[in-house]
């Protein structure tokens, strides 16, 4: 049976894992890394790069290198104005208000960019497993609303993946942690990743995971810690030289890398030096940045960020109706939890030593792989109950939001409620579907809107309209309204809210596929070129050294063949390059033949009629003329 992979599609890094022989295994990418930067780059030559390689060229190409795309997934442009300022690539608004990334004059939707990362993760898994991968479980932050979840699903489809389940990251990490523990426990998952902070309170027992509550901050993570360090460096620099480095896109990129490095170093050391030569220049000459940062100073810089994790933790405990003493275990997830101060803070909050037994960068993907195995039946006796993170309801008289499904309700779930008309002879009701915790409809997020028409005229309060909310296991919401008098029904599936239509997704999926095809073609072309280059090189070398051993005609023939290869090698025609290379190889074999003939005759002559066997002659030859021997062996390999 085909394997189902688990993917942690992170803001800064992504990770893929699969169950193998009952054990979850993180799959290293082509570069041997266990996590892949969620970075996509478009080069000047039209190449598309994903992961570490995209990150390595980021400095040379900041406008066309996309990172932290997860922040824009399923969002409207007017919701992300603050984030837009933090990225060096261009964000524009689509006609429907969605976010688009503008790269080299072409607009890409966030799911399309995410799909490129997913395609890379898919390929990583396929290379490792040696077979195609179709199905996947992808994780999202607990706070993701419906349209963000849907956008993630769309990204999967564009990448050619059938996303069989979207699960919350904390649920996933608790799964990774809880598999071997079967006793009843209450667990707090403290996930401080690159871009998001999530705190979840879970209950584990008898192989069943129940999410008691979730809370967090969608705008708090390692990136913000980096930003604090960047701002500090830029402020110090401005104090000394009066130049604002934040205005220089390239300097900003260098500051960003230096900040991340310094922060990571300070998790193990007490002090670090930040040294950026030639960061900028003014009329008086080049300027260098040279600063020293201590762990204490870093902790002071990020103190307000650390404080911001406390509120959500307390609220999560309240929602779960638990006190810190009730929590049995605390799990740390996300690279930022490596910071000693974070561990200290978590310890103070829950009055327990946090659990660091699982690698904080990989734990989410590992859990997703376990979930995948549960769904395929590979792992039994684990049942996973998930909850809806936000309340759902409809707008009723006076612009009030009436909740049908309270937040933290375990899903899948289904709730119905009867409503009536607000005015006499009202023949239509408008169902305005909302998500959020605020009392007034206007303060919450609109998921969708539809009308139920054809209600027979009657005094207000008489008609009965049954509104049903149905959330499936993936957290996708279906809403229907039924007039119990006439049996008329209207429903919507809240799905198109990622901003992409069915057709668009299919088109993008095709694009992605053809791109993969193109990549394969390009790779083949490069391989042919490399081979051609190498054959030309070895032939020319042999010709220079032993060219006098062949007749002038042969020599000319070979030289012509070399010229032919050289003339086609830069073309895009793979077949032509292969053909010319083949011809050159055939022609160059002549030298080998001639040389072989000559050395054999020479040796036979030199050794005289000693009556030696063919075999021992061969041995002698290789001893005496090892260099020549090796040379044409190489060519015969080609």
């Amino acid at each position, binding site marked *: 049976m085909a394997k189902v992979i688990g993917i942690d599609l992170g803001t800064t890094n992504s990770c893929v894992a699969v169950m193998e022989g009952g054990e979850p295994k993180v799959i290293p990418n082509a570069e041997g890394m266990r996590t892949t930067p969620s970075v996509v780059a478009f080069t000047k030559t039209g190449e598309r790069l994903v992961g570490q*390689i995209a990150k390595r*060229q980021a400095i040379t190409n900041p406008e066309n290198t996309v990172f932290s795309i997860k922040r824009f997934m399923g969002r409207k442009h007017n919701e992300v104005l603050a984030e837009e300022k933090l990225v060096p690539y261009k964000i524009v608004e689509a006609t429907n208000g969605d976010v688009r990334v503008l790269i080299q004059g072409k607009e890409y939707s966030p799911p399309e960019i995410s799909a490129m990362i997913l395609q890379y993760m898919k390929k990583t898994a396929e290379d490792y497993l040696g077979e195609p991968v179709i199905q996947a479980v992808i994780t999202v932050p607990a706070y993701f609303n419906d349209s963000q979840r849907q956008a993630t699903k769309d990204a999967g489809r564009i990448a050619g993946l059938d996303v069989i389940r979207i699960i919350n990251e904390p649920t996933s990490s608790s799964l990774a942690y809880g598999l071997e523990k079967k006793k009843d426990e209450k667990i707090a998952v403290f996930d401080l990743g690159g871009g998001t902070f999530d705190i979840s309170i879970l209950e584990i027992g008898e192989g069943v995971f129940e999410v008691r509550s979730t809370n967090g901050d969608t705008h708090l993570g390692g990136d913000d810690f980096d930003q604090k360090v960047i701002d500090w460096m830029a402020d110090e620099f401005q104090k000394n030289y009066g130049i604002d480095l934040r205005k220089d896109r390239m300097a900003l990129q260098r500051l960003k890398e230096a900040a991340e490095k310094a922060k990571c170093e300070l998790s193990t050391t007490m002090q670090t030096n930040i040294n950026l030569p030639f960061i900028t220049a003014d009329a008086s000459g080049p300027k260098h940045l040279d600063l020293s940062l201590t762990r204490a100073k870093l902790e002071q810089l990020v103190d307000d960020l650390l404080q911001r994790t406390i509120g959500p933790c307390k609220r999560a405990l309240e929602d779960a109706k638990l006190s810190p003493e009730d929590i049995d275990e605390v799990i740390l997830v996300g690279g930022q939890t490596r910071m000693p101060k974070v561990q200290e803070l978590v310890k103070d909050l829950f009055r327990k030593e946090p659990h660091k037994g699982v690698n904080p960068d990989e734990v989410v993907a590992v859990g997703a792989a376990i979930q995948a195995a549960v769904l395929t039946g590979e792992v039994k006796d684990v049942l996973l109950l998930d909850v809806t993170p936000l309340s759902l309801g409809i707008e009723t008289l006076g612009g009030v939001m009436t909740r049908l499904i309270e937040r933290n309700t375990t899903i899948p779930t289904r709730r119905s409620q009867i409503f009536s008309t607000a005015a006499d002879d009202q023949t239509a009701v408008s169902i305005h579907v909302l998500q959020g915790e605020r009392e007034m409809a206007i303060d919450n997020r609109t998921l969708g809107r539809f009308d139920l028409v054809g209600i027979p005229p009657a005094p207000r309060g008489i008609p009965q309209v049954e509104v049903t909310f149905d959330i499936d296991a993936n957290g996708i919401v279906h809403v229907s309204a039924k007039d119990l008098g006439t049996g008329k029904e209207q429903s919507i599936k809240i799905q198109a809210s990622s901003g992409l239509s069915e057709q668009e997704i299919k088109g993008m999926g095709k694009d992605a596929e053809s791109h993969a095809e193109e990549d394969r073609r390009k790779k083949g072309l490069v391989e042919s070129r490399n081979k051609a280059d190498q054959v030309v090189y070895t032939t020319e070398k042999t010709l220079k050294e032993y060219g006098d051993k062949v007749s002038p005609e042969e020599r000319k023939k070979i030289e012509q063949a070399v010229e032919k290869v050289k003339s086609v090698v830069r073309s895009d025609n793979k077949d032509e390059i292969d053909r010319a290379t083949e011809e050159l190889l055939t022609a160059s074999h002549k030298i080998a033949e001639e040389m072989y003939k000559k050395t054999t005759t020479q040796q036979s002559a030199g050794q005289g009629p000693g009556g030696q066997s063919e075999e021992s002659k061969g041995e002698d030859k290789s001893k005496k003329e090892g260099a020549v021997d090796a040379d044409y062996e190489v060519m015969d390999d080609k």
Partner: protein
Amino acid sequence: MDNFQRALDSAKNSGDFDSFHKGVELIYQHFKDILGKEGLKEIKAIGEPFDPHLHEAVMQQESDEFPDGIVMDEISKGYMLNDKVIKHSKVIVSKGKK
């Protein structure tokens, strides 16, 4: 390892920096030869077109000498073991003329 030990011992006992330097250089050469035989190669960088498969750009600068997109300086060497990059060269890439 023995050679390193010898070098350390001689550094302790003798003030002759030149011969110490020469000794360390010999060890470096020897070490490089051994690794070279195992398939270790230095990655070419300066004067080559910037290639993220081999190089990591740490900064970009204007240059009169090198055209746009060409590696103009190497901050640390990269290495390949057989055909696999084990360490990327950290490089400065030219932005072309001012």
